[in-house]
């Protein structure tokens, strides 16, 4: 593996823009307000649409910017820094299925709308909470041109505001994806779920009895594109979250006194904070290396897989650790809902268990790095 980080001019500019955009649009009070109100911020969304962010990874022929998913990383990282409540993550992930899929009609139908602000989302998780998308039990049964669905999907993000829903089902013994309009789903099939990260709008989706046209089918050359996109963007968001967790710790260590000393002068707090700094510096390096590997859109080689597993393994472990220490180092205040530490810890745990935690990814890495067949 090379150690060369390919950082593009576009990424650099997007990083600048996104940092200041997210800072001004998502101060912590706004985040808390959105947690309480579950209200979609249409204005903020429209601002992102106007910046062209929804079209970054969409080819130019569908009105997008024709860049890679690596260019989205600086945006998602910046959102993560500000715990931004937004369907951007879910929508960008779902978009990848259309972009990499084989259904030209659906691309023409949906991708330009997505560029203009239509929200998409992915429904792939199931009751058991498996990470491998191939462990799918929701069924599609063909009846002529119609496919009848059964099963339930969980932890579907932003399903209330999504217009486009992409669902994984087992059809003819293969896992495939279907892409439907959200308004085809009866409202009673959609139920809000409680998840640990309150900045997430999460829903269950009851598929039983839904009938869809077989023209809604999307085939991917390789299902891995979903996991790969998710690992990249989750790691980006976690990297941003980790940076802010660190800043939150440092601020408190520099203001709070105990026994007449600023608590940051105690090595028991200072040294673990340095560990968190070093974890952040490492994660961010892996993240932008990996983002650079996404450049050409060809995401099938082993190097990229290794890079992605490393990102998510490091992100899961270090963000969860930092969130935990952020509570602890805030002492009694850290135990309150009022303290921002809980926001970071909740975000960290939610992210840790989406698409595999550190143990899972390290075991996949062991296969890739240590076994002869690699």
């Amino acid at each position: 593996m090379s150690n060369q980080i390919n950082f593009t001019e576009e990424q650099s500019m997007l990083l600048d823009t996104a940092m200041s955009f997210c800072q001004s649009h998502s101060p912590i009070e706004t985040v808390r307000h959105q947690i309480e109100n579950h209200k979609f911020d249409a204005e903020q969304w429209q601002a992102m649409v106007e910046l062209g962010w929804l079209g970054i990874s969409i080819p130019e022929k569908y009105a997008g910017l024709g860049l890679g998913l690596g260019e989205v990383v600086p945006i998602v990282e910046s959102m993560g820094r500000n715990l931004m409540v937004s369907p951007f993550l879910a929508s960008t992930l779902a978009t990848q299925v259309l972009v990499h899929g084989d259904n030209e009609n659906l691309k023409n139908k949906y991708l330009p709308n997505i560029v203009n602000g239509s929200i998409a989302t992915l429904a792939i998780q199931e009751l058991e909470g498996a990470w491998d998308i191939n462990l799918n039990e929701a069924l599609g049964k063909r009846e002529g041109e119609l496919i009848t669905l059964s099963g339930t999907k969980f932890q579907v993000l932003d399903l209330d505001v999504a217009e486009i829903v992409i669902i994984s089902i087992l059809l003819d013994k293969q896992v495939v994806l279907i892409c439907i309009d959200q308004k085809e789903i009866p409202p009673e099939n959609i139920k809000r779920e409680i998840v640990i990260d309150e900045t997430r709008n999460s829903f269950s989706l009851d598929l039983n009895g839904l009938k869809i046209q077989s023209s809604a089918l999307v085939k991917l050359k390789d299902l891995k594109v979903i996991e790969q996109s998710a690992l990249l963007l989750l790691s980006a968001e976690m990297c941003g979250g980790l940076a802010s967790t660190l800043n939150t710790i440092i601020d408190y260590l520099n203001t709070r006194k105990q026994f007449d000393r600023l608590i940051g002068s105690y090595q028991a707090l200072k040294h673990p904070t340095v560990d968190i700094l070093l974890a952040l510096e490492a994660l961010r390096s892996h993240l932008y290396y990996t983002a650079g590997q996404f450049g050409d859109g060809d995401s099938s080689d082993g190097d990229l897989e290794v890079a992605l597993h490393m990102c998510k393994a490091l992100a899961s472990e270090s963000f969860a650790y930092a969130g935990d220490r952020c509570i602890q180092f805030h002492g009694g205040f850290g135990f309150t809902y009022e303290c921002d530490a809980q926001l970071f810890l909740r975000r960290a745990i939610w992210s840790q268990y989406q698409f595999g935690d550190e143990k899972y990814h390290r075991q996949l890495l062991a296969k890739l790095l240590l076994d002869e067949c690699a």
Partner: protein
Amino acid sequence: MSESKKDLEEFQREISHWLKANKPADPEFLLPETFMEVGTDRQFDFLRNWQQKVYEAGYLGMAWPEEYGGRGRHQEYQNIVNREMAEQRVPFVPNTIGLNWAGPLILQRGTEADKQKYIKGILNAEDIWCQGFSEPDHGSDLGNVQCKALKDGDSYIVTGSKIWTSLATYAKYMILLARTSNTDSNKYAGLSFFLSPMKVAGIDVQPIKKLTGEYGFCQTFFNEAKIPADCIMGNEGEGWSVAMATLTFERGAAGGQAGGLSMMDLNVNDIVELAKHSRRNGQPVLDDPLIRDELVQLIMDDRSNRLMSSRSRIPALRGERPAAVAMSGKLRGSELKRRMTKFAISLQGANGSRYVGSSAIDGGRWQRSYFNSFSATIGGGTSQVQKNILGERVLGLPKS
């Protein structure tokens, strides 16, 4: 008052039988795991009723004097009750501050009148107690207490605020550490200790929303609240030494508690059970070698804690630092609990992201337990402070 082994064994059968017959049915809501987590009236009522029942059956305050409401028996009886309650996983009894800290303190240092007035109500849960030590700005630094109590005839006028006053909304009394004098050169010498009534004008209690999203802790505000002068414990200026005596009860380094189970103790066996029935990514989690290894380490650490207690009861095996085991109990127990609950989440695959109230595994108990575990790694001296204490008092290292 040595007890025969036979009597004790017989008693154990008795309490075991009684608990089996009287263990309350699971309510339709998730119960708290310690008194610090009592967040709703229905949780509180349920637990207070349970304590009353246990007391009336004769199983609380077993070693406290009969004239005050106790049972006048050997402490070993109470120990048996406590162990058996933990064993049978019955709910805990909620008047923890009264039973374990205020009560023993009153019996040890209180006047005859104090004993007559307070003990019975502690035992039957009529009088709930809370603790007023910590203040918002000096978490671990008790010597720095700023809440003022100024003598005014036969009253003290109290002004300031106390934080982490669990059960304060239900409490009739508070053990209160306050500053009666600012003139002393030594900050400790200005402190006094009170058995303060709570239902007094000028005392306001505000529940604190915890990181779990639930309630359970409070902040108590004193706005020139007038409390009777005779509720002082000891003399003015003796507050620090009384508070330290109380903390030895809290840190488990002294005996004499009226007991009863004080928490639904999370057990490593619960984690093993969870693991046996959980799947990660479509596979039984016990097929995952890294999960197995972490679980084995937790089992070993849990067992270490149990065996350390056993060993510390054998004088010849206490070693060079006989205080090490008792003084580290809180640190070891609370940190292990934090690790165990964090680990329990990892057994749930993508469902680890869920939380209380949704279709989460075990109702989200594990996620909530992990969050709540910080109350013990922070409260009563953070784990970092505990390590200082151990380093300095047990190992004799210089102060940090």
